[in-house]
């Protein structure tokens, strides 16, 4: 068998924040590391993150600490989170942020020269370390520049993994292809870390790029790993809605953190009308108090625009459906109004939100310092994902680890803004550390050549011997439309059952997709292969969403609009049955330890 082969102790699939942080850790532990990514290095989703990274540094408000961060994360996640992960995350995030600074990240500063922190939805205190609104770029570049000097890390760019390889129960490698030449490549590894990010491309309107086809979930699932709570997909309340070509592109929550407000077409700040009970005593009573909060008044409560994303997204959806939306089917997000309150508002906005200023200027022809933006919900983040052990990030499959957006547990039913970047660092590091430990105890595994060959044949048949002439792009669009319409922000049993039927049909069509026969940098061919991942994850998330007959966090069921105690005590778990069918079971959530229970009581 002629195939280029590389051998590493640890193979990291994905070079976003989680993957790079994992690679650095495993290399520092003395392992040889392969780092694989579908795009060029430094272009992963992490680069797009805007608002900031959450860590209870307490630089702006010294009342903050890990306990409050933990309690906020659990409340935001509606208590179906993995509490061990929420605890570790809250405790370790500050150290990970400080470490980034030691590696060269240049965060914005407080007056006394420390790392500045800003307000964000669901965080009780100003907690997000940031660099204007390009925090992700700062993080990815810092990790990239830190890792390029490590000789133990070999980077394989524009290389897509299509299959995990197992020796018995254990994962021992992966098969992929280079996008450039279309040649296959085999990686042998003693441990594999999945850090492939999310699945936003299953939906029509999304802030996510072509990369987010749910590869990691699908790879892990087919290797026997369990997927957890796939129904929890975050619809970010503020995506661009106009012009059509930019629909879905993110408008950072930082706009609201800096004083931006949401209004309907009548000019009303509708968020004040619907404040959930469990946030009532943390929310401003009136416009004045909300404004004071954004300006750092420690006695003020946050404005309702900074309630959790699930809630804000639903409120916007309601305004639009009730006919109170903006001309292009959104609502107004206005930061320009702050000129009534502060001098130099224009300069302030450009300084604090430079990339938003640019984005609207260049893509929408709108000057956000003088006009309101039009915004609406966009598919943004996958809370669910590969089920991992909270401490080690290992899945139920020996040797297979996951971190970042591809792993699940930390965020429960809804992620707080800023908690992803910190997640990447905290659990990227842990995954790297424990994968290295695991790898150091293993012998190289045996690679099943027949399996590799079958997998390569499958990949090539889309060009060499297609079973039909379906257009893969068209099929992807059809799937996205169905998921958006039937499994979107507001869900109903009958619609989701229709979605399952449709997915079945799409699966059949997916067998017949074809691409021009040219292995060199052929996106049509790549899309044929991505489809199978997209369909797997679409089915998984739809099944979970049907099974969870309640509304909680990001999952809103029109037919079960309330939270239920029964479902508040379980996670949904997807696993591939021996016969290849997709199996779903409910699993009781581990109760909080007494200590953590105490923390929640104490913080409230």
């Amino acid at each position, binding site marked *: 068998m002629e195939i280029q082969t590389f051998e590493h102790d640890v193979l990291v699939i994905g070079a976003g924040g989680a993957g790079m942080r994992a690679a650095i850790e495993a290399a520092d532990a003395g392992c040889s590391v392969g780092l694989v990514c579908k*795009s*060029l*290095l*430094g*272009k*992963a989703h992490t*680069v*797009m993150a805007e608002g900031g990274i959450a860590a209870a540094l307490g630089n702006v408000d010294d009342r903050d600490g890990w306990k409050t961060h933990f309690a906020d994360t659990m409340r935001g996640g509606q208590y179906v989170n993995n509490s061990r992960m929420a605890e570790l995350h809250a405790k370790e995030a500050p150290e990970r942020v*400080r470490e980034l*600074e030691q590696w*060269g990240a*240049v965060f*914005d*500063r407080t007056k*006394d*020269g*420390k*790392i*500045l922190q800003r307000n964000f939805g669901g965080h009780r205190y100003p907690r997000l370390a940031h*660099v204007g609104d*390009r925090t992700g*770029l*700062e993080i990815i*570049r810092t990790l990239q*520049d*830190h890792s*390029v*000097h490590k000789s133990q890390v070999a980077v394989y760019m524009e290389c897509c993994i299509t299959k995990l390889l197992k020796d018995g129960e254990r994962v021992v490698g992966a098969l992929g292809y280079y996008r*450039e030449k279309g040649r296959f490549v085999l990686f042998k590894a003693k441990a594999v870390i999945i850090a492939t990010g999310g699945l936003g491309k299953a939906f029509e309107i999304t802030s996510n*790029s*072509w990369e987010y086809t749910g590869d990691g979930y699908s790879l892990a699932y087919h290797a026997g790993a369990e997927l957890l709570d796939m129904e929890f997909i975050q619809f970010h309340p503020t995506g661009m809605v*106009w*012009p*059509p*070509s*930019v629909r879905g*592109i993110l408008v950072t929550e930082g706009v609201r953190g800096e004083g931006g407000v949401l209004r309907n077409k009548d000019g009303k700040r509708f968020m004040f009308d619907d404040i959930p009970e469990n946030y009532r005593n943390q929310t401003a009573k009136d416009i004045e108090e909300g404004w004071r909060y954004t300006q750092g008044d420690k006695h003020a409560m946050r404005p309702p625009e900074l309630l959790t994303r699930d809630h804000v997204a639903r409120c916007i959806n309601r305004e639009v459906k009730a006919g109170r939306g903006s001309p292009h089917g959104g609502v107004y997000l206005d930061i320009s109004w702050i000129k009534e309150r502060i001098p130099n508002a224009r300069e302030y906005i450009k300084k604090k939100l430079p*990339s938003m200023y*640019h*984005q609207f200027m*260049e*893509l*929408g*022809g*709108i000057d956000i310092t003088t006009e309101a933006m039009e915004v609406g919900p966009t598919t943004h983040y996958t809370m669910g994902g590969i089920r991992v052990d909270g401490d080690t990030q290992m899945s139920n499959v020996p040797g297979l680890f996951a971190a970042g957006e591809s792993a699940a547990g930390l965020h429960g039913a809804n992620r707080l803004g800023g908690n992803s970047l910190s997640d990447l660092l905290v659990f990227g590091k842990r995954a790297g550390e424990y994968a290295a430990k695991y790898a150091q105890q293993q012998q190289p595994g045996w690679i099943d050549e027949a399996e590799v060959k079958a997998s390569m044949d499958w990949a090539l048949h889309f060009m060499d011997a297609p079973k039909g002439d379906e*257009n*893969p*792009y*068209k099929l992807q*669009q059809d799937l996205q439309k169905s998921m958006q319409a039937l499994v979107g922000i507001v869900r109903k049993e009958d619609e989701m059952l229709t979605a399952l039927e449709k997915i079945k049909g799409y699966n059949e069509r997916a067998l017949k997709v074809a*691409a*021009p026969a*040219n292995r*060199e*940098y*052929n*996106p*049509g*061919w790549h*899309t044929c292969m991505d489809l199978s991942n997209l369909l797997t994850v679409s089915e998984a998330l739809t099944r979970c969403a049907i099974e969870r007959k309640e509304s909680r966090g990001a999952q809103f069921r029109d037919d079960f609009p309330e939270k239920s105690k029964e479902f508040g005590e379980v996670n949904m778990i997807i696993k591939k049955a021996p016969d290849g069918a997709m199996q779903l079971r409910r699993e009781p959530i581990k109760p909080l330890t007494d200590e953590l229970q105490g923390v929640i009581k104490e913080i409230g």
Partner: protein
Amino acid sequence: MSSIGSAAAATRTFKVWRGERGTGEFKSFTAEISPGMVVLDAIHQIQATQAPDLACRWNCKAGKCGSCSAEVNGKPRLMCLTRMESLPDGDVTVTPMKSFPSIKDLVTDVSWNYEQNKKITPFTPAKRGAAGVAADGTFRMQQVDVERSQEFRKCIECFLCQDTCHVIRDHDKKEVFSGPRFFVRAASLEMHPVDTADREPFLKHTGGIGFCNITKCCTEVCPEHIKITDNAIIPLKERVADRYYDPVVMLWRWMFKKKG
């Protein structure tokens, strides 16, 4: 008011360079134009409906990742930020970046750039207790003091400046010249308040900053509006000139009476 909505014709002709490893030709495609559309949308439309194997890079579609660099009507641009309304009437040509080896269609081999980064001494912070470093090791830096470095750290590595610079584009001095992107990178480190490393030997020898004759073409194409020449290259050249002779700096100093 926004110009959106006043979009011109409903279709446009795109002449897209198609080929592999340097050999190829222009192919014409017609794309439907909708309000606010950018060139990258047209390329995607062509891919989805007419040429499924048309190769291009993209990720964010919002000017944040620096993947979609190409030349539109001969000018280095991010395709995702090039609005159709901003282009003159007539056919639109889309070609790959000229300064890098062609792979296929609009995709070029930019690996040389990644090699340059490795040559730059990484961030090397001062020790605890030194100026700017507190006893616990965390930094104390004023916002005004980090702003210069932050300007350079806005770089999204689109490599359009590299594509434009005549030292690379016309003279192909890739062996001895790292290019504006990496002067920006070096400057971000050199101007970091607590960095202590010395990158002047890199700039002078490996990076070849002396080849730059401050034409400012790089600054003009930078989508992040980094003042590459004025804020990064010239100050670095100044530093290098204090240690090594650089005729361009000498001339520049003479012209602007900035005796060093």
